[in-house]
């Protein structure tokens, strides 16, 4: 029914465009066609109007005694009327758009060059006071019956970053899902979640240690996953991609810079409990990954790593809600463990000519085996209120620097952090959070961190993953 008017429009367009070429006979034929269409539509519209009038009339003359049966309801109208009455979606053909507003007040110690002791020195945020986080603009929608697309733009002061931009298959079937573009990798549990969906104001220490300040492995590549046709949830996935982000580095080459495999399983225990567990493996490669080290005399030294990194991740999440109704009370427990091996070579140098131990660049073997975990529980004890606790611990583990062990300081340390938070949600779309953490991620420093954070979302609000 919708196609015909557009056909008429197209016909009109064709008439106007090809007027010179068309003969009078053609024109007359088209005119008569259009007239005919007009007539049939007028008839249909008047039929619909009549039906509407009848419906209104019958509504007004509702039988006063309820004892009468109204057979009108039993008769179903022809499908045309149903289609006309079909509620139109508010978004019509526009994509779903939503905007996430996030900001915070942070009270912490001033630690320039903040990093996690015993781990590859990634420079971490030392932002204090009032600030806004990235403002996220999410645009998504169906592309056609076969594909869906979504993009997330992170807007900061003077730049717009493409956080995610991907397409997803809808029509392959047999449990197969294909995703391509830039996406948050499905390894681990928290990795896929955007900061506005986190239960704490910042990421677990292990995510920062694994993936640097972004605390998530984002990939430009392809993801292929398969959901098994079993009553228990079993999902297997693989990813290949550019691998440009830490612990890999960008390299302009043919082929893939990183690949990943993962498996997820999940189910319910009765009505009130549900769980998901996963195991993931990520292989990345780095070429000249730079980091700021300290030499044995306390001077700054530059180190560069080339080699491969293999990361194993195990995750489990368990959710409880009385009768499976999370509205009034629910509890969520999640925990993840990782183990990572770097294997390659390390070159120590002195680019600033400070006279450190690597005045002459020194290359050595480099291999590490490091691990860490976190566990957290969040309890929603009233519809608006939630409270949560989290504990983080990392182990710097084995760090074998070969002959560079004589030049660079290697710290053996177990970074720890304990976090407590409470948040209040006015509705599903607005949340205010207070968080306190005792952070011992830097050796010799106990940092008492206070964060007040707000998360607001407006526009279409898509569903969150489990």
């Amino acid at each position, binding site marked *: 029914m919708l196609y015909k008017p557009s056909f008429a429009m197209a016909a009109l367009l064709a008439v106007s465009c090809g007027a010179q070429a068309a003969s009078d006979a053609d024109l007359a034929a088209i005119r008569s066609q259009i007239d005919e269409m007009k007539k049939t539509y007028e008839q249909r519209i008047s039929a619909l109007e009549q039906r509407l009038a009848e419906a209104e009339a019958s509504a007004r003359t509702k039988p006063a005694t309820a*004892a009468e049966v109204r057979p009108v309801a039993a008769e179903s109208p022809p499908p045309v009327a149903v289609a006309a009455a079909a509620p139109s979606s508010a978004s019509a053909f526009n994509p779903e758009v939503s905007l996430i507003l996030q900001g915070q007040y942070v009270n912490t110690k001033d630690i320039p060059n903040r990093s996690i002791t015993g781990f590859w020195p990634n420079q971490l945020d030392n932002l204090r006071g009032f600030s806004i986080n990235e403002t996220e603009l999410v645009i998504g929608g169906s592309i056609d019956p076969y594909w869906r697309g979504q993009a997330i733009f992170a807007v900061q002061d003077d730049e717009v970053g493409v956080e995610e931009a991907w397409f997803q298959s809808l029509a392959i079937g047999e*449990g197969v899902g294909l995703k391509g573009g830039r996406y948050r990798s499905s390894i681990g549990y928290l990795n896929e979640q955007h900061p506005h969906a986190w239960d704490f104001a910042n990421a677990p220490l292990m995510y920062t240690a694994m993936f640097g300040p972004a605390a998530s492995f984002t990939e430009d590549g392809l993801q292929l996953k398969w959901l098994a046709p079993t009553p228990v949830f079993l999902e297997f996935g693989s990813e290949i991609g550019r691998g440009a982000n830490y612990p890999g580095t960008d390299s302009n080459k043919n082929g893939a810079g990183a690949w990943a495999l993962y498996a997820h399983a999940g189910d319910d225990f009765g009505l009130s409990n549900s769980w998901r567990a996963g195991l993931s493996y990520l292989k990345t490669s780095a070429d000249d990954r730079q980091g700021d080290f300290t030499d044995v005399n306390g001077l700054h030294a530059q180190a560069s790593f080339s080699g491969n990194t293999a990361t194993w991740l195990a995750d489990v999440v368990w959710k409880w809600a009385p009768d499976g109704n999370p509205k009034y009370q629910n509890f969520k427990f999640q925990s993840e463990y990782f183990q990572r091996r770097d294997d390659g070579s390390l070159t120590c140098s002195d680019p600033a000519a400070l006279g450190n131990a690597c005045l002459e660049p020194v290359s050595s073997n480099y291999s590490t085996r490091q691990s860490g975990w976190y566990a957290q529980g969040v309890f929603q004890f009233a519809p608006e209120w939630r409270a949560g606790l989290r504990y983080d611990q990392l182990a710097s583990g084995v760090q074998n620097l070969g002959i560079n062990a004589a030049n660079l300081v290697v710290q053996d340390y177990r970074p720890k952090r304990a976090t407590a938070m409470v948040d209040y949600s006015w509705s599903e779309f607005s949340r205010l959070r207070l968080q306190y953490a005792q952070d011992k991620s830097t050796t010799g420093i106990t940092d008492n961190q206070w964060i007040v954070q707000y998360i607001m979302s407006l526009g279409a609000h898509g569903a969150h993953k489990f």
Partner: protein
Amino acid sequence: MFRLMTMFLLAMASLPATAALQVFATVPEWGALAREIGGDKVSVFTATTALQDPHRIQARPSLLAQARRANLVVATGADLEIGWLPLVLRDSGNANIQPGRPGYFEAARFVTMLDVPLVLDRSQGDIHAAGNPHIQLDPRNLFRIGEALAARLGELDPPNAPAYQAGYKVFAEKWRTAIARWEREAAPLRGVPALAHHDSFVYLAHWLGFKVTGTLEPKPGLEPTSGQLSSLVAGQQGAPARMVLRTAYQSDGPSLWIAGKAGIPAILLPFTVGGTPEAGDLYGLFDDTVQRMLKGLH
């Protein structure tokens, strides 16, 4: 080995032919309706229970596993399941149940929606652009939905199409008689003013002719506030409500508070199949709804 493989493959290939049509119903009422129409030709999985707020369901792994195997998803639509169903459908890897395909059925498309908002703004709370989605509580809606569902089942499972048509006919006949009985029994409810926890009973009120004069939620989806409750109690001076209604999944606190202050009964209605022990099927749902409301009048 080869023989084993062949046998396994043959067994796999013969499975769909013998197995019943797998129906994934988002809420209990559509699961019950599919059973009424499909009988033993369908195998129904119901994703939620009457004790769960249909607005607040999560895309649990178990739901993904069920959606993966479904031949037909029967949803309410009108954004009722927007918080979880789109995600479940997309991640299910099941092409047949995507919106727009025959394996995706939205009940709200076949009824006249009430409370369609003129202005879409979240300052009005969690409103639904397509109108109030709690359509199952006007039993007359089940004729159109049931007929369309029978047709859809037949489209997906052509050999059994006559059985679905017959199933619908039997249901419609019994349903017509039942509606007549409920309307007769519920006649005293006509014009009765009542309060409701949430806009859950708009279609029920439209059908039985009682009036929902206020909701305990200040805006749809927001928790009842003391201010809202006090103003409702104050409003009892003028045109007093005779009862305060809630569903099985809503907390009883606010209802009981109002009931105590205003001296009116707080009534739990099943809202959907399984909401009360008596509401074991669609007939029980309305039997019990009418009986509980009538009891509230005395």
